[in-house]
């Protein structure tokens, strides 16, 4: 809906900005937003800025909350929703910030507009605008929650190195998924720590589940093998698929110092032999 010159809603909001702000803050406090003094101050500032941004938006052609003049208001709402999402507020608490604006606005409209038809029109426009802004916060909130969850999943993946103690003195590290440089570094450092903690002098790094390996990742692997050797442990790399073998050769990575095996099983046999054991076929037990 286009604003005509002298749209009552726009007039009232502009003329009574300070008063509406004061009433709105009271309303926010009443609806029980938690917070300490510092947060209250922050909310006061944010509220003031948001109300000013609304008036900026209304100064343009759209009272619907769309259009470029509303960018600032949307920015403020996005930031607020994001910060509340990371702080653990519920979606409702976040949307309440916007919805609690209705009461003060309606009160002003009622006292400033005498004509019933005009008042009804203004109520309607205000409601649509505030509802739209309120819904926007829930969407922004949702996006942030999803980002938080995705990040936590990434961190969990990085921190949980699936190092398995296959046998006495033998560790296995099955790597799965695409490796990037920083994840590889974290995982490799963790492997070295586990070698120390378990006292296992053989570690099998299995890359069957790794689709591709680039230069950096290959270098990290080689450095880890070298570091393990310095510490007194040996590494065997298993599960090198044909494509990865080609990549490694093309990258010019020197594998002459490292034992490599096609499968984890083969690597395990080699590891057993090195640690002084071997597997023998046993006799089936007599019934």
């Amino acid at each position: 809906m286009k604003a005509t010159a002298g749209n009552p809603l726009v007039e009232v909001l502009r003329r009574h900005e300070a008063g509406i702000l004061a009433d709105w803050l009271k309303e926010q406090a009443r609806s029980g937003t938690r917070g300490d003094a510092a947060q209250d101050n922050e909310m006061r500032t944010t509220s003031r800025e948001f109300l000013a941004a609304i008036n900026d938006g209304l100064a343009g052609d759209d009272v619907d909350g769309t259009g470029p003049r509303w960018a600032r208001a949307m920015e403020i709402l996005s930031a607020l929703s994001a910060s509340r999402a990371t702080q653990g507020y519920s979606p409702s608490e976040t949307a309440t910030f916007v919805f609690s604006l209705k009461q003060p606005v309606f009160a002003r409209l009622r006292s400033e507009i005498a004509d019933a038809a005009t008042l009804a029109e203004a109520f309607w426009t205000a409601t649509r605008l505030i509802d739209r802004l309120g819904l926007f916060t829930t969407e922004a909130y949702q996006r942030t929650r999803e980002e938080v969850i995705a990040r936590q999943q990434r961190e969990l993946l990085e921190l949980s190195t699936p190092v398995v103690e296959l046998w006495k003195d033998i560790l296995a590290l099955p790597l799965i998924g695409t490796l990037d440089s920083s994840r590889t570094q974290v995982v490799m450092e963790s492997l070295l720590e586990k070698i120390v903690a378990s006292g296992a002098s053989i570690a099998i790094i299995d890359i069957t589940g790794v689709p591709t390996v680039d230069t950096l990742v290959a270098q990290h692997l080689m450095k880890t093998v070298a570091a393990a050797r310095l510490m007194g442990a040996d590494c065997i790399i298993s599960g090198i698929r044909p494509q990865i073998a080609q990549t490694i050769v093309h990258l010019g990575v020197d594998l002459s110092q490292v034992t490599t095996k096609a499968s984890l099983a083969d690597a395990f046999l080699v590891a057993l032999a090195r640690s002084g054991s071997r597997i023998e076929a046993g006799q089936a037990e007599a019934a």
Partner: protein
Amino acid sequence: MERIPILRMGRFLLVTIQVDMHDQLALTLQDDLTERIVADRAKGVLIDISSLDVVDSFIGRMISNIAGMSRVLDAQTVVVGMRPAVAITLVELGLDLAGVRTALNVEKGMALLQGSTVA
């Protein structure tokens, strides 16, 4: 004068480096070790560096020197307890401690010196 203690375990000598070594201390250690290998007719030297959070090229050279000297005196050297951060840094530094055998801990180091494997 401050010296690093050298312990004797059977035919082997055990040195635990716990302090941030400066030049004089390192040189004294090398001298002391050489003397003890001969005096005790030691067959091996175990150097425990599990307390070191930094190993630079100076310490690296010292370790290589000790290994070299011991070999001349018909004794083996094994270095144990290198920390992961130190190992990673040494690889980056380009120091490979060639000719020095390493083991994860004192127990494995002793097994290595004694010529048997820990099953």
